[in-house]
């Protein structure tokens, strides 16, 4: 492989891999606290994109109950200015976080209160996901919604440079996604590693019973976990939406599956594992030759399978030790 192609693939892989990473972090946070997979995370990802779209554009097309509505006939205050757009993104992600909290209240807490099998909570979250996706379609239809091309300000759509006589091209939006993802990962790392809230979260994850005896309100920290998870999912949704468009109510489904592969690959419940897993899957997809790129999902899952054969606990997961 030529050096230019290698660099090109690396850039492509890092950009999409970083989105997988922040999306998968939402999965991981919930798993590390409750030991369950929240299948509604993909729907929250989709909602985040729609919430931000509502703030930045606020115009809905011909299908769905909101058809014909234009919230900003004179133009949205969140459009055309990168800082305003960033604020809209944060608000969209925060509202997605609130939805995730509601999901916890409706789908997980009642199950927990009855001591139900974690598998039931998983099925319950799957049901919530389907309801959300269908509600989105009912409200805004199946159209594709796009953010304005100047959402990040007047930036060039792509940057390119020569390497060994070949041109390496990267979309500006990919660089922005990568940068934002890195910042978010750093912030989350700081919150979990260095703050009181983070310590409490880790204590709850380690042993909810002990944490409760130490005066930590387990229920409150579960809600905080869900909010953070939803925030990250919603943020990832907006980032993907700006790069590729909000491709209808179902556009979180693929990411939901991919996120699942990422956390299993990285190691269930491992925050660094989610980051590494996301980047590994993103890079693996990017290195699939162009002629076979339709099979990139299969390649990602085949890689997952192979790695799990060698390391069943995932790349950075801890092996289960049973005392006899």
């Amino acid at each position, binding site marked *: 492989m030529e050096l230019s*192609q290698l660099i*090109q*693939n690396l850039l*492509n892989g890092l*950009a*999409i891999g970083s989105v997988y990473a922040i999306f998968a972090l939402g999965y991981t946070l919930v798993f590390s606290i409750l030991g369950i997979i929240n299948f509604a995370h993909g729907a929250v990802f989709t909602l985040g994109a729609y919430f931000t779209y509502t703030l930045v554009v606020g115009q809905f*097309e*011909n*299908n769905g109950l909101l058809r014909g509505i234009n919230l900003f006939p004179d133009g949205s205050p969140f459009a055309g200015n990168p800082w305003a757009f960033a604020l809209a993104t944060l608000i969209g992600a925060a509202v997605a976080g609130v939805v995730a909290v509601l999901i916890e209240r409706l789908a997980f807490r009642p199950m927990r209160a009855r001591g139900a099998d974690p598998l039931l909570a998983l099925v319950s979250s799957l049901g919530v996901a389907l309801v959300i996706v*269908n509600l989105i*379609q009912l409200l805004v*239809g*199946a*159209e*594709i*919604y*796009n953010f*304005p*091309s100047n959402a990040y300000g007047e930036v060039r*759509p*792509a940057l*390119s440079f020569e390497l060994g006589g*070949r*041109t390496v*091209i990267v*979309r500006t939006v*990919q660089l922005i996604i990568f940068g934002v993802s890195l910042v978010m990962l750093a912030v989350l790392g700081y919150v979990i590693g260095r703050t009181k809230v983070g310590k409490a979260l880790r204590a709850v994850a380690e042993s909810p019973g002990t944490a409760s005896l130490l005066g930590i309100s387990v229920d409150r920290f579960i809600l905080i976990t869900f909010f953070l998870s939803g925030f990250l999912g919603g943020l990832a949704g907006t980032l*993907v939406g700006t*790069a*590729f*468009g909000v*491709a*209808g109510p*179902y*556009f979180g*489904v*693929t990411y939901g599956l991919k996120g699942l592969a990422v956390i299993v690959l990285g190691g269930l419940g491992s925050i660094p594992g989610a980051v590494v897993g996301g980047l590994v899957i993103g890079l693996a*997809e*990017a290195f*699939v*030759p*162009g*002629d*076979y*790129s*339709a*099979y*990139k*999902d299969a390649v990602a899952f085949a890689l997952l399978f192979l790695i799990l054969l060698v390391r069943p606990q995932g790349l950075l997961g801890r092996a289960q030790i049973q005392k006899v």
Partner: protein
Amino acid sequence: MKRVALTVTLGLVAAAHAQKVQAPIPIGVALAQTGNVALLGQEQVIGARLAEKYINARGGINGTPIRLIFQDASGDENTAINAFQNLISKSNVVGIVGPTLSQQAFAADPIAERARVPVLGPSNTAKGIPQIGNYVARVSAPVAVVAPNAIRTALRLDPKIKKVAVLYAQNDAFSVSETGTFQETAKAQGLDVVTVQKFQTTDTDFTTQVTSTLNSDADLVIVSGLAADGGNLVKQLRQLGYKGLIVGGNGLNTSNIFPVCQQYCDGVIIAQAYSPAQPSAANQVFVKDYRAQYKKDPPQFAAQAYAGVQVMADALRVIDRRKKLTTWELPALRTELNKQILAGKYNTPLGELRFDKDGEILQKQFYVAQIKMKDAKNGSFVFLK
């Protein structure tokens, strides 16, 4: 397995046996109202509803109104099969317009064939659809007829084109069928197919395909996909610096791609089986009704669904003149309707159309259009002579 199929078929036929046709005359519509194809299905539903409204406003079938019974066929085969079964055995429809996708038609149409219920495919353009059975016809011209026009037009616009990159959605039967036609046409025109890239209709990130295309130095790109993926692919091709002509397939033939590729849609060439500029009286009425409600030109998918319902209604009208529809036994009417559909000539928004003995549409006019964007969201298909 065979025994189960036989039992189901006998059940469907028996359910309709010795049952008189109800008024209003029930016509089934099985289209994708949910799922990732709903983008097209919703347009079709709009077209079908406009046809129903127009037909009933003009007295229905010689005074008896029609009633469209909608069943969501979503975007997958199983849902389409269920929708067909419900329409046939529970709703007792006289015929069915649907499903949305060719691959659904290959799965669901045999159900109607076994139950002897006529089916009109409103958007099934893959090879082999009319050959599914005697009761299957389509109002959507096959890609083999429509697609080559777009390549010929591209060569007329830029005679220097030599190298072609072909990209297609490999998980969609229609796109696979269409790309075959495109590739054959390109080779027949003496063009060199330098790269063939595949993707999935659910994909959003096309960086790999686009960078491979750019490295192939192609001067024409041909895309076969659906609106969401195809529009996104066009956008990313342009954003990453591709400057040559782009030909889009039938899946991109909808104004729904405007908000997807925005200003980057500009210049995409698309061969079409329908044009809002089609001068027939039937089309003028349809365009007027559509514009009044939706403030834009109707897309092809709406026009084809409208034509499907209209063909059913026109054929029923002929039968009703011979013998009142409500006096027919349902199975007999279904068989008679199938015969009449194939025998008739229809003036629809697609222009004049007929069917051959297999149920293949015989359409007089096709069009090639180029997208012209007014701004980031609004554009139109400008017809090239």
